[in-house]
């Protein structure tokens, strides 16, 4: 039994699980936030999808003998047609737009010739499987190859010389078009010689569309994320309630290593790579960005806590994007390495227990594990009301920005994986 707004989603899921005829019943939308009396009306009322009395329908679902279709077993193989057309560019664009294979903006048509030009920039065979993606963690995993990535890179308008970087990003298996109702998106940070090779931006406007490599690698990543899983169809394979403007073209930028203060290592070195390696690091779960000015000696602890505790405490990730101009105060506060700052954030950004367990997203995702005895949630459930809960786990620091003012920001992005670019040449 599920709300009617999610009919297509639940039928898709039942189909993926091999039970396309799973017996379903629907309530009006929403259930959350309704009073007991309102929910009693739901129970006594009709299924809004079938218009049948809800409980009689459910009793029928539980007692009606199975049909031959419902007893069926076997393997369903869904084949994909490798070629589209021939047709005009205008009609092909509409064909891609209708299926949400594009971003509804003009694309470069992925002809065999253009895709071959992209594939020539890697030694990897076109049929090699790079990875799998899901629209969310609960949906089926679709597989994509070097060729799939090349097709999407062409569509984005990427230059062939960007292809190894795009392949490395694809190999992180990070979905930049997650179907989470929370409208999350993704970011990627490049380090090492690839930054100069592709002339990527780490300064003014680094997270925006002001750099050719960043913009087109990001657009290719967005296309791949949609299309590796069959296309982001709103209401079906894209469920973001409001969408996220940061996800239209995921931010792809370079760390400003020239602006790193002494003692702060580049991100890829933190992740175990050599300083001379070219590496892309992918972050997922990005939702909103808080921007602040420089921290002051008088109240930096309060200001840092206040900025980073914003939003639902179910979100356990933060990516601190620190402009070189605002690093001196961080050093003054004792953060002479990124790791010390990360530890401080993990231990000192808190929410009172009494508010933690009231948050609906925390209830949805953490209450079950807490009741099942999973730590630290089980312990947090038993704390006194005023007890501070340090809810952040996945915290990273990247130095980026052009120092045009004393600003820095933080996002709810969570680090996922880093991959060497040279492995994909």
């Amino acid at each position: 039994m599920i709300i009617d707004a999610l009919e297509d989603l639940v039928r898709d899921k039942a189909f993926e699980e091999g039970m396309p005829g799973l017996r379903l019943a629907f309530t009006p939308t929403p259930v959350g936030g309704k009073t007991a009396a309102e929910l009693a009306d739901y129970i006594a009322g009709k299924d809004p999808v079938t218009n049948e009395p809800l409980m009689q329908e459910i009793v029928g679902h539980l007692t009606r003998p199975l049909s031959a279709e419902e007893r069926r077993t076997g393997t369903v193989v869904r084949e994909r047609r490798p070629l589209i057309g021939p047709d005009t560019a205008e009609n092909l664009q509409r064909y891609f737009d209708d299926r949400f294979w594009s971003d509804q903006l003009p694309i470069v048509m992925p002809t065999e010739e253009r895709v071959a030009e992209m594939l020539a920039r890697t030694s990897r065979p076109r049929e090699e499987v790079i990875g799998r993606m899901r629209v969310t963690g609960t949906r089926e995993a679709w597989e994509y190859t070097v060729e799939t990535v090349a097709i999407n890179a062409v569509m984005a308008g990427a230059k062939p010389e960007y292809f190894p970087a795009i392949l490395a990003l694809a190999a992180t298996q990070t979905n930049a078009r997650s179907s989470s109702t929370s409208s999350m998106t993704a970011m990627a940070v490049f380090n090492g010689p690839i930054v100069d090779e592709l002339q990527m931006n780490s300064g003014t406007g680094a997270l925006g569309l002001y750099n050719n490599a960043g913009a087109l690698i990001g657009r290719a990543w967005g296309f791949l994320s949609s299309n590796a899983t069959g296309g982001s169809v709103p209401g079906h394979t894209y469920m973001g309630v409001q969408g996220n403007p940061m996800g239209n073209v995921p931010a792809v930028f370079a760390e400003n290593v020239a602006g790193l203060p002494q003692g702060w290592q580049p991100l890829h070195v933190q992740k175990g790579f050599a300083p001379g390696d070219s590496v892309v690091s992918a972050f997922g779960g990005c939702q909103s960005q808080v921007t602040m000015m420089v921290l002051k000696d008088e109240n930096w602890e309060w200001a840092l806590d206040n900025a980073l505790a914003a939003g639902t405490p179910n979100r356990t990730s933060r990516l601190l994007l620190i402009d070189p101009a605002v690093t001196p105060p961080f050093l003054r506060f004792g953060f002479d390495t990124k790791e010390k700052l990360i530890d401080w954030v993990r231990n000192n950004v808190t929410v009172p227990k009494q508010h933690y367990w009231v948050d609906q997203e925390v209830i949805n995702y953490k209450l079950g594990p807490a009741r099942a005895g999973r730590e630290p949630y089980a312990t947090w459930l038993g704390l006194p009301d005023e007890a501070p809960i340090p809810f952040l786990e996945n915290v990273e620091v990247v130095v980026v920005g052009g120092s045009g003012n004393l600003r820095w920001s933080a996002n709810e992005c969570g680090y996922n994986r880093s991959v060497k670019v040279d492995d994909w040449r």
Partner: protein
Amino acid sequence: MPSMQNQADRQPLWKRAAMAKGKRRAPLASLALLLGLPFAVTPGAADERHSASADGERSTVLNPTGTPPAIERRPLAERPASLDGKTVYLVDVTFNGGDLLLREMQEWFAAHMPGVKTEYRAKQGAYFADDPALWAEIKAAGGLMIMAIGH
């Protein structure tokens, strides 16, 4: 007129499957399914709705989508002829008010079908996590299950 295949790959997965049923009626495909052999549900073909204009240059392009996994069909559980004397487990996945909804359903059964015993259970773990202990409990009791996914 667009073909069934053309319409199908604009649809969500479950509707694509329903629309592909026509193809599966082919005797060989149906037999393959009954025997548990793979068969193809082919998505998409040339889109007649957007047929080429007379003066436009026509080209063929590559499909940008990934490859979906094969699906193993699973039969539904056998049903009893009646719920009299049966235990129905009302399973809450702890998502947005599902517990309150199931409590109301429990009251409905008590008022309208007193011969049915109901047991409310909150599934362990997050809403997407497996709970084999609960499934074993329901099976051992010869019970039935209504799962409520609130939202």
